[in-house]
């Protein structure tokens, strides 16, 4: 299990442009870190670098408590980007079953997720018929279906209404209380106590 994340002296370059350099922070168990910064500062790129999808120009992302970083990312990290990866033509149930099954969730996990995000009525609808907030809830459901230590979320609350911001905030609080970690790019403050890290100055 990932017991700590340490980002050291990280630099990310996209094309010709250096987004940021010399960025360092840590995430401890039970801690939420909110990445803040203007649009295009490199928050999403930083999240993708932590998830291992993007090669940083310099610096390292270390996971403490695991043998192999790639394996830890595959088994103990959830990345939910601003694109939700849901196929419009399939039902929410099919898409959730795939995403959760791919992450190793079982039937009990699916039921738990559907309850936590109140998806009951939505599951039989095609994803394209859902509103942005409903889509986001389907996307977030795999966090509950397949419990993992590190949540890496890109603007997780953006399309949600106030009620759901609060309820997802509660999910995050429960996750942190259980020793989980959260790394999120945000513009609005997170509904849980979080340490802010400024990206791209």
């Amino acid at each position, binding site marked *: 299990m990932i017991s700590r994340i340490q980002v050291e002296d990280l630099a990310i370059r996209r094309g010709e442009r250096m987004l940021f350099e010399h960025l360092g922070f840590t995430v401890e168990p039970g801690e939420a870190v909110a990445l803040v910064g203007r649009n295009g500062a490199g928050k999403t790129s930083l999240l993708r670098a932590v998830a291992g999808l993007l090669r940083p120009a310099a610096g390292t992302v270390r996971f403490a408590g695991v043998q192999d970083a790639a394996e830890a990312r595959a088994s103990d990290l959830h990345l939910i980007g601003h*694109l939700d990866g849901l196929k419009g033509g399939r039902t929410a149930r099919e898409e959730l079953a795939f995403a959760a099954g791919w992450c190793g969730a079982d039937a009990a996990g699916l039921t738990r997720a559907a309850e936590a995000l109140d998806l009951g009525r939505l599951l039989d609808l095609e994803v394209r018929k859902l509103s942005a907030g409903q889509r986001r809830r389907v996307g977030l459901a795999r966090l509950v279906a397949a419990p993992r230590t590190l949540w890496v979320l890109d603007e997780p609350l953006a399309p949600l209404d106030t009620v759901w911001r609060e309820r997802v905030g509660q999910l995050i609080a429960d996750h942190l209380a259980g020793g989980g970690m959260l790394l999120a790019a945000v513009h609005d403050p997170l509904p849980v106590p979080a340490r802010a890290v400024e990206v791209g100055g």
Partner: protein
Amino acid sequence: MSPLLVLLRRELALAWGRGGGPLPALAFYAGVTTLLPLAIGPEPDRLAVIAPGIAWLALALASLLSLERLFERDYEDGAMDLLALGGPALEAVCAVKALSQWLATGLPLALAAPVAALMLGAPLSLAPVILVCALVGGLAFAFVGGLGAALALGSRRGGLLIAVIVLPLFAPPVIFGGGALSQAASGLGGTSGLALLCAWAAAAVALSPVAMAAACRNALD
């Protein structure tokens, strides 16, 4: 259920859900093989000679049809992140995608190939060779085609790029299969051409997932 099995089921459902699975490729295939006699004249003797070759070539071209969406869809809607981060290696993900492409279009086309060749007047004795060539060759086309689709990720004219990348790699199996068919037609059995075709398919299945995965990683980076 194993994640790769979950993925295979989803890929097959996606292939069927939008675009009707093998139907566009089959329609194209039927179009080529039924229009051909109208274009070159209906003399049975002439048709019978070229029937196996036409059935084989049309199959190669028809397998190009639905390649563009194989990786592009997942890349554009963000599902590729999930696949790249999963437990199974990205190489295995790509192999499953190519395999699903074969199951969804290659296999139905392979079943249609002997029928089309017989309709054009090929002798019945050739049907088994045509079927085997189409099955094995279809596997090579799916994996090599998947490589083209992965390399074209993120480019604007993906379909064109796929064709340009893939056509040179389609040439050897087309030659080997065509050789097997003409050997079989002249009573030589066709095993040497078939062996070469199998070798090409085996190489494509073994090597192209590595290249597909590298191309996907590059597109995600």
